C-alpha cells in the first residue's frame, strides 16, 4: 500500500515536472532571412508561426458535399483558435460536422499544426479542414495577416 501511494505520488510529480519542462522547451525563434522563409515547414512538423497576435483566413477547400473555409487566430506565436467560416450544410452534412468540427479544432490547437487525423465518418470534411488549415498556417508563416 505504501508503494502504491509512492507510485501515485511519483506519477503525479513526474507528470507535473514533464509538462512544466515541456512548456518551457525553447520554441525555436522564427527563422530569419528569406532563405528559411522560402521553405515553409513540412506538413508533419509543428509550424513556427511569427510572434504577435493576428488572424489569417485560409483558402476555400472543396469537398463533394460543399466547401470548407477556416480562419485561424494566433496569439504570441501560438495557434489559439480556429473558426470555421464555411462548412457544408444540409442533410447529414450538418449533423456530421456538428460532431467533427469541434474535434478537428481541438486537435489542431493541441497539435499546433495541420497534422490532425480524420474524424471517422467525416473523412472529406477532415481532409478539407486540414487543407484549409495548412494553407492558413503557411500564409501566416509567410507573413499574410488580416
Amino acid at each position, binding site marked *: *500500500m505504501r*508503494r502504491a501511494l509512492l507510485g501515485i505520488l511519483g506519477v503525479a510529480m513526474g507528470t507535473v515536472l514533464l509538462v512544466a519542462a515541456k512548456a518551457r522547451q525553447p520554441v525555436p525563434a522564427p527563422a530569419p532571412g528569406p532563405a528559411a522563409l522560402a521553405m515553409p515547414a513540412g506538413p508533419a512538423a509543428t509550424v513556427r508561426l511569427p510572434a504577435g497576435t493576428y488572424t489569417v483566413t485560409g483558402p476555400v477547400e472543396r469537398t463533394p458535399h460543399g466547401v470548407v473555409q477556416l480562419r485561424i487566430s494566433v496569439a504570441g506565436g501560438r495557434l489559439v483558435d480556429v473558426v470555421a467560416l464555411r462548412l457544408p450544410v444540409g442533410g447529414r452534412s450538418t449533423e456530421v460536422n456538428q460532431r467533427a468540427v469541434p474535434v478537428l479544432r481541438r486537435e489542431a490547437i493541441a497539435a499546433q499544426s495541420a497534422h490532425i487525423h480524420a474524424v471517422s465518418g467525416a473523412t472529406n470534411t477532415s481532409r478539407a479542414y486540414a487543407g484549409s488549415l495548412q494553407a492558413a498556417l503557411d500564409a501566416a508563416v509567410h507573413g499574410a495577416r488580416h
Partner: protein
Amino acid sequence: MPSRRVSQPPPGRIRTHSIALAVVFWSGLALAVAPWWYGDAGPVLIGAGRVTGLVGGYVLLVQITLVSRIPPVERWLGGSALAWHRDLGIVVVAATLAHVGFTVTGYAVLDRTPLVFEVRSVLTGYTAMVSALVATLVLVAVVATATHAVRARLSYERWYRIHLAAYLVLLLGYGHQFADGRELERPGFARAYWCVLYVLALGSLAWGRLVRPVRMNLRHRLRVDRVVDESPQIVSVYVTGRRLADLSAKAGQFFRWRFLARGMWWQSHPFSLSAAPNGDWLRVTVKVVGDHTEDMCEMLRPGLPVIVSGPSGDFTADRRTRFRALLVAGGTGISPIRALLEELPPRAVVIYRASRWQDIVFREELHWLALAREASVVYVIGPRDAPGPSHAMSPVGLRELVPDVRLRDVYVCGPDGLVAATDRTLRELKVPRRQIHLDRFEF
C-alpha cells in the same frame, strides 16, 4: 558434524536481478513517454492527459507481464511479483482517472464548453472512445475488489471471476490508444514501440499461462495417488506422475492445482508443496475451508487427473544468505516450512505457531526431520493474546528462543497477521532485510 556443514552449498546470492529489472522497467517507461516529449507542444492540461495516459497504458502492460508466470518473473520476483501487481494496480487506476480527467478538462478549456458537453463530444467524436470508457469502469471495479477491505469479504472463487475481467480492460482500452492516441495513430517509432510492448506482454502471458503449463502437464501427467487425513480439518493429497525427477520444483514453492473432477475442473488453487519434491510424489496439505477445499476430500479419488501450473515462488532455500535458518510457521503455513526444512542447512530452528494442539500437523515428520537435520522444533500454542505466545513472538521472547537470530535467514509463512507481526519483530531485532523471507497466504 562439521563435515556435513562444509558439504552445504554456499548461501545463494539474492536480488542480483532486481537492479536489472528496475533498469528494464524505467527505460521501458522512458521510451513509452519519449514520443510525447519530442512531439507537438500543446496546452498544458492536454499534455498532462497524454503523459498520464501513456504511463497508465505502460503500467497496465507491466501488470500483465507480472502475472504472466514466465520463468524470469517467477524466479527473480517470486512472491513479490504479486505484491507489485497489487500496488501497481492502484497506480494504473490513478493514472487512468487522471488521464481521463486531464484530457476532458483540457478539451473543455480549449472548446470553452461545459465539462458535460465535452464528455459527450469526446465520446462521439473519436473512434473506440465508448469502449475506452467501459475499460475505465471495468478497471476501477477490478482494482476496487482487489483492495484489502473488499477482498476480505469475497471468496477466492468470486474474486477470481471478477478479476478475470481485467483482460477486458486490455481488449477495450487498446483501440482508443492506437486510433486516437496522438503519438500512436501514425506509423513511426512510437507506434512500433507500443506494438512491441503489446506483443511482449501478450506473448509472456501466452507463454507463461498456456505453452509452459501445457508442455509440463503433457510431460508429467499428474494423478492423485491418495488422500490422507492429517487432522480433523486438514488433509494431505499425494500426487504422482511420470518423470517427476525432472520436475524443476524446489521446496517452498507452490503450484496452482486444478483437479479434474466434476464441478472442480474449472478452478485452480495455489497450494504450497508440503514436502520437498522427491521424484516419486508431490504432496499438498490443505485446510478444509472455503467453497473449494471442502469438495476436495470427497471428490479426490485415486487416479484423478491433476493439471498444475508452476512451480512458482521465491520462498526457497537458495535465497538464503546465511548458513543457518529460523523458520516460523503459522497454521497451515507449516506446509512450505516443513518442505524447506529438508533443503535448508542443518541446525535450523522451527517455531510452529497454532491456536490449539488439534491444529498441529506433521508432528511425527517434524520429529524425525529434526533428528535427521539436527534441527529443533518449538511449538507455540495458544490464542494470540495469551501471555505465553505473545511473549514468545515478541522481540525479547524471540531472542530468548533463538539468541543468534540476527545471524540467521528467517523464513516466515502463515496468515497475514502473523507474517506482518513477525516481520515487525524481526525488524526490531535488527535482522537485516535481505535475511527475511516472507510467504503470505494471499493471491
